[in-house]
């Protein structure tokens, strides 16, 4: 902006500026566009097999034909049981971290543990699931064992998003409540949680999307390659969409080309729909001001 300086220098600066801006935009596009090309390719290849029949019938002919219904239902089971386990624990942990914990060594260790829960390889979670739930607790390979493994693995998603939602509620509201003689829990229950609820829901939707896509943790803990009937309870094994995609694209010979594309499309559809829902939810939330 230094107007009295040599304008030639300024013009050169502006040129460099524009060049660099374009360079970074190019990098961004190179990162994002290929993925969209791939996704479009997936849609084109998978669309032909999409039908009500595909979604609501069982696989047949050694999984080279038919639909994906048992896998779809199995994924719903796995996600639901995982949520039943991880949401209460995750929300409690987030409430502790946001509302009770002071900045001490214990809080640091808890935060480190959360980072590591998210960072430990999914196959190590699978080993843990086998060692703990399948063998030690004797659940066998079952929905219960697989869902507990998934739940622990995705716990950080719930904790982190809930904590963010809680911390977005201004401190002044809590103080006002405490000054009225409300206990900490009364304050949380009547003022903090109601105002963080939609943020928490956003996090839970995100967790659904994460949980539905995981494969490695359920491979040895409860998901079966092929099981033509639906699970009746949490101690049954089940098929799952993610594992089904792995199985028919690597383990089964003579699968028609379009079939795995169809499965991939359904899986990615569920995951992206859940994610978009969560993002839309968040955007609406930001617009609707309550204070």
């Amino acid at each position: 902006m230094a107007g009295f300086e040599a304008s030639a220098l300024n013009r050169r600066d502006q040129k460099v500026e524009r060049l660099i801006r374009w360079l970074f935009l190019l990098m961004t596009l190179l990162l994002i566009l290929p993925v969209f090309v791939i996704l479009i390719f997936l849609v084109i290849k998978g669309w032909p097999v999409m039908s009500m029949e595909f979604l609501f019938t069982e696989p047949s002919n050694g999984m080279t034909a038919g639909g994906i219904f048992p896998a779809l239902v199995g994924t719903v089971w796995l996600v639901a049981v995982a949520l039943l386990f991880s949401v209460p624990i995750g929300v409690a942990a987030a409430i502790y971290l946001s509302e009770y914990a002071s900045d001490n060594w214990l809080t640091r260790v808890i935060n480190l543990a959360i980072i590591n829960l998210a960072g430990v390889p999914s196959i190590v979670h699978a080993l843990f699931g086998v060692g703990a739930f399948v063998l030690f607790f004797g659940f066998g390979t079952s929905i219960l064992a697989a869902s507990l493994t998934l739940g622990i693995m995705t716990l950080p998603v719930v904790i982190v998003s809930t904590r963010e939602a809680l911390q977005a509620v201004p401190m002044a509201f809590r103080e006002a409540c405490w000054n009225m003689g409300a206990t900490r829990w009364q304050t949380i229950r009547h003022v903090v949680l109601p105002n963080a609820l939609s943020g928490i829901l956003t996090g839970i939707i995100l967790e659904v999307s994460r949980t539905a896509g995981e494969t490695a943790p359920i491979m040895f803990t409860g998901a079966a390659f092929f099981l033509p009937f639906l699970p009746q309870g949490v101690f049954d094994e089940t098929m799952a969409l993610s594992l089904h995609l792995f199985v028919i694209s690597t383990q089964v010979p003579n699968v028609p080309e379009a079939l795995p594309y169809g499965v991939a499309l359904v899986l990615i559809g569920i995951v992206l729909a859940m994610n978009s829902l969560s993002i839309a939810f968040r955007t609406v939330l930001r617009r609707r001001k309550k204070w």
Partner: protein
Amino acid sequence: MGSPESAEVAGAVEGAGVAEGAGVAASFAEDADARTMAWYVDKGVEILVFIGGVSAIIFIFGIFGFVMKEGAGFIAGSLDLGEFFTSPRWAPTSSYNPTYGALALIAGTASVTGLAMLLAVPFSLGTAIYIAEFATGRIREILKVLVELLAAIPSVVWGFIGLSIMNPLIIDLFNVPVGLSVLNSGIILGLMAAPIMTTIAEDALKAVPDTYREAAEALGATRWQVVFRVVLPAAKNGLVAAVLLGVGRGFGETMAVLMASGHSINIPTSVFDSVRALTATIAAELGETAVGSDHYKALFALGIFLFLVTFIINLTADLVIRGVRKR
């Protein structure tokens, strides 16, 4: 967790007040000392959420403990650690001479992760810089949402993409016999790790106070000079942490690497070689082993190794980020 009640009473004038207003104090006593229902509920909830809070610690110890329980005996007993780290021969099912050399697997993981980082780090940082420093308004929001959606694609779908889209593409483009290779899984892994690194790097850039930028701009620096001379150095630790977490993600990724790397035990000499990763080995072999066998335990030993390496990476990233906060 000190409760309000446990705050110590300053000794100086203790009790004096009770004497002074003896009659008054009596009427207060009931309210002052009553433990109401709300009080007990509050304490109960405090204990419950505390348990929730420490559960993360319990789980992480549980994971380490149970993986150790299955694998530690083998490491202490029959596993030759020298062989483990130096021999490229992973042949746990060999009937006459089972060997447990993880070198080729480590090389597989390292080569794939290395290539992925080589590809993903510049693009991720570039994207983060563009989103945080150059893009404005709607475009910034849209780019952020897109990056977030990329991060959501499940790893088994990425593996499938490597298997059925990248594989023929690489065979055609480079005229090689196999397309499942370091190159394929490196690209896939790079695409997977990039959104995470971008998000964390962008957070780090955002954390640099605007006053820094304003001060530099007031001195007549252009936007890119501000970014390179002021913002990037200030956000250095956060960016390092972003890369570290990306490495951790790549290192621990299972399904995509299992499906796209070719799965042959091999120390790679070119990017077109097939390799096999540590994670993929566990995923591929655990189903075929008998519980309690040496092979089974050896896979848990690989798990312990994976756990420790990712733990160290995460710990380092955390310390690096904390360095930023301290300053």
